[in-house]
Every structure is written in C-alpha cells, then in structure tokens.
C-alpha cells in the first residue's frame, strides 16, 4: 500500500474518528462528506471503544496478507452509540465467539506488507 493511502486513514483507523451529521445527527464511520439526509456539515466525534458482536465468521481460508493468521474470527461490532464496523475478534477461543458477545476495541497490528512493507495498525475486538 502506498504510504499516502495508509497515512490519510490514520485518524479513523488509529483514533476511531467518525463524522456526525450536523443536520440529522447520524454518525458515520468512516467519516463521509454527504449524508443521505442531504447534510454536508459534519462534526468529528470519537467512537466508543466498547460494544457487542452483531454477526461473525471464522475465516479459515484467508487473503494472502493474512495467510499466516488463519483461522481467525472476524465480525461486525456495534459500538455503544450504534455505529457498526468490521474487526477481527481475538484473544478468545474461536468456539466461544457468539453474537451479542460484549467486546472492547484494542489498538493492534493488523498485518504486515511483506518483509520491507508498512506495518498496518488498527483495532481488533477482544472480550470485554
């Protein structure tokens, strides 16, 4: 990944910054420029780092960047306040992952681009 592409996502990925529509109050993660309500003014807000698993899977055949990680849990997490995002589910035995499970988002290494590439960070969900 070119470093510019990586760097510009840092506020969202590292700090969980989201955009709250000034017209209707809906929060978007990642932030966007236009809300379906028509609003174009957004306030930067930070997502809660706690929430629950909405749905999940266990990836057993993974993309090449994650080939050494399989099997791993991957789910959609609804953080407190209602915003949903995708995150790996870690530090939990795979068979214990369930919808509704309370989780906390922790800053972690996500993957590494080969031997000389960028180390990519973000959030993973751990049992709360």
């Amino acid at each position, binding site marked *: 990944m070119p470093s510019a592409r990586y760097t510009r996502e840092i506020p969202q990925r590292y700090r969980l910054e989201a955009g709250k529509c000034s017209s209707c109050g809906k929060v978007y993660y990642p932030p966007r420029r236009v809300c379906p309500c028509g609003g174009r003014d957004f306030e930067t807000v930070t997502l809660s780092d706690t929430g629950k698993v909405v749905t999940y*899977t266990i*990836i057993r055949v993974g993309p090449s960047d994650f080939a050494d990680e399989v099997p791993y849990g*991957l789910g*959609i997490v609804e953080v407190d306040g209602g915003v949903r*995002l995708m995150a790996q589910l870690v530090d939990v035995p795979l068979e214990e992952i369930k919808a509704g499970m309370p989780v906390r988002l922790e800053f972690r290494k996500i993957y590494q681009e080969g031997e000389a590439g960028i180390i*990519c960070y973000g959030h993973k969900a751990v049992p709360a």
Partner: protein
Amino acid sequence: MRDVAIIGVGANPKWGELWGQSLRDIFVEAALAAIDDAGVDHVDGMYVGCMSSGLFAGQEHIGSLLADYLGQRHLPATRVESACASGGAAVKMAALEVASGHSDIVLAGGVEKMTDVGGGDATYALGTAADAEYECYHGATFPGLYAMIARAHMDRYGTTPEMLAQVAVKNHDNGALNAMAQYPFHIRAKQVLDSIMVADPLHILDCSPITDGAAAAILCPLETAKKLSKKLPIKIAGFGHATDTIQLAQREDMTWLGATAKAAEQAFEMAGVAPKDVDLFEVHDCFTIAELVVIESLGLVGKGEAGKATLEGRTARDGDLPVNTSGGLKSKGHPVGATGVAQVMEVVKQLRGEAGERQVKDAKRGLTQNMGGSGGSAVVHILEVA
C-alpha cells in the same frame, strides 16, 4: 422509449478452467454464438460486463480489444463494471441504447477470465468488490462476508446448515442437465456438510467456483425483431437497478438485500406483474445463503422462509418457484462479469422452449437477479414471450 427484444443468445460451450483459451478467445466465441443464434450480420453497439480484467488478466480497455477481435472495426464498445453484477448492468445499458432509438442492434456481453492467476490473486481481485479500506483491510473475504449474512440469518430465523446445503444440491441437480456447466454433476447434502469449512458456517461446497466463461445476447427493437431474426422474440418487459452500502456493516438489516428489493420493485412495476406471474427465476447464488436472502428480498417467499421453502422443494425445477434451472452460479460456474448475461441466456432458452431436459413446462415469463459485492449492486430483468 421503444420496447426491446432479445433475439439471440450464446456462450462459450463449456465453462470452467479454460487454460488453453484467452479472455478474447472466450468472449469472441460467446459473441459469435449469439450473433449466429440471432442470424444478424452486424451489430451497431456493444456493452461488455467485466469485473476485473485488469487484476485477472492484466488487461484493461477491453471494449476496443473485444470489438477488434470480433471483427467489428470502429464499433462503439464500452466495458461496464458493477463487480459481479457487471453482466446484468451491460444488458441494461444495451437495452437503454436500443430503447432510446440510438442503435438498432446491440450486443450485451459479459466475460471473466479468472484462472490466469492463482487462488491468492483471484481472492484478492474478488475482494476488491468489498470496501478495500474497511473490510478487506481487516482480513475479510467474500465467503467471510456471506458467512456473516448466513450467521445473522441463522440467529434470527433458525436457518440451518442443511437448508443451505439443499440450495447446492438443488442447483447441482439442475446443472447436471446443462452441458455448459463447470460442475455438471449431482452432489448430496452430506457431501456439502462434510466438505471443508471456508468461513463458518459456509463450506467449500456452499461456494460458487472460480470460472473462465463468457456469454452474450443480441438486443433489438421489439417491432423489428421478427424481420431481423427467425427466433421467437423475447421481450424485456421490465428492469430495475439499484445500489446499497458497499460495507455490510452499514446495512441496517444484514439479512435483507436492499438493492435487490429496490431493483425488483422497479422491474415488477415496469413489467406490470407480480412475483406470482413469473414462471422461473435465475438468481445470484454466489453462495448458498445468497440464494436464500435473494428470494426473500425479491418477495418470492416471506422473510426467514427461504430455507424451509428450499427444503420443501418449492424452488426445485418442478416446484412452484423454479430457481436457477441452469444450475446457478454454484454448478454452472461464476465467471463474474459473464454471470448476469448467462442468467438472461437461460431465461431466453426456457421461454423459447429450448432448455431440453431442464425445460420448465409452459414457461412464459422469467426473472433474472444479478448482484455485486455483498449486495451493494443489483440488476433485475423480467423477460417474457412477446
């Protein structure tokens, strides 16, 4: 706007791992089959559905490439991309070009040459139909996204792995009768359930395969169809096209395909018919769970009822809602850009009474539903005997 008819359809004769043939080879084979089927001597325009010739074959600009190799120098030709709904979108663009009066004979094609790269690169290329920055970044795969839809459907409605497996069994039963199918054989539910897990709860036999293939259709104004071709004209009675959030996480209901529901609503309204008036359905079963949520979102069965309807045989060839008589993506194969066009081809063959052992008796009207990504794009066509 003029009414539009389909007067020719064709595909390369056998879908699968075609190592001896290139992207241009398989497309030209399909396009010539459709041109010969219609019996026309030229086309005025061409739209080609293709998801990712760049990543799969290192080739962009395929409008020029394919028109050139089809022997149609200077033909206006455009590639259309909507991930796995590219083929359906190409048919819609061709229909609009004929309907507008701009062109009289337009070829709608679709192609994907997927086996020139290995499994890892193919997984990467398909993954680009998801949100690269917020889904793939975290290790999502397409089986993984549909697995999350399956898990949500199971938790909410009690859908079971056996219900999912029955979709595969039923579609292979149909595909076993289709000479072009990549995997034209029967499978048993136990084989599906015993096959390796790719992304829980989806096994490898819940997934459609990686396929090289192409398909094409010839469209013209309905009023001149009988002059241009000896084939029974099949009218495009309605179409619909809609999008939804690209990210699965941002859907309010992960067991519902909003784009498909919207596209179907438009198509039914345009055709002036309801699901009960349709004799067969070709839908996007990229994974077994996809067929279940699609037939619910199309309104063929109620929410949460698709698994039960499948186990009861309602979606079998002889059921009251025949779904995927071609074998679907599961058995016939899923060359992503070609799939939407091949769905149209199956319905045309059924409506002409040319489907052989797969023939649905007295079929007069059929529907196709083609979708991209985890449901972020959908195109629906309703075809009927003119």
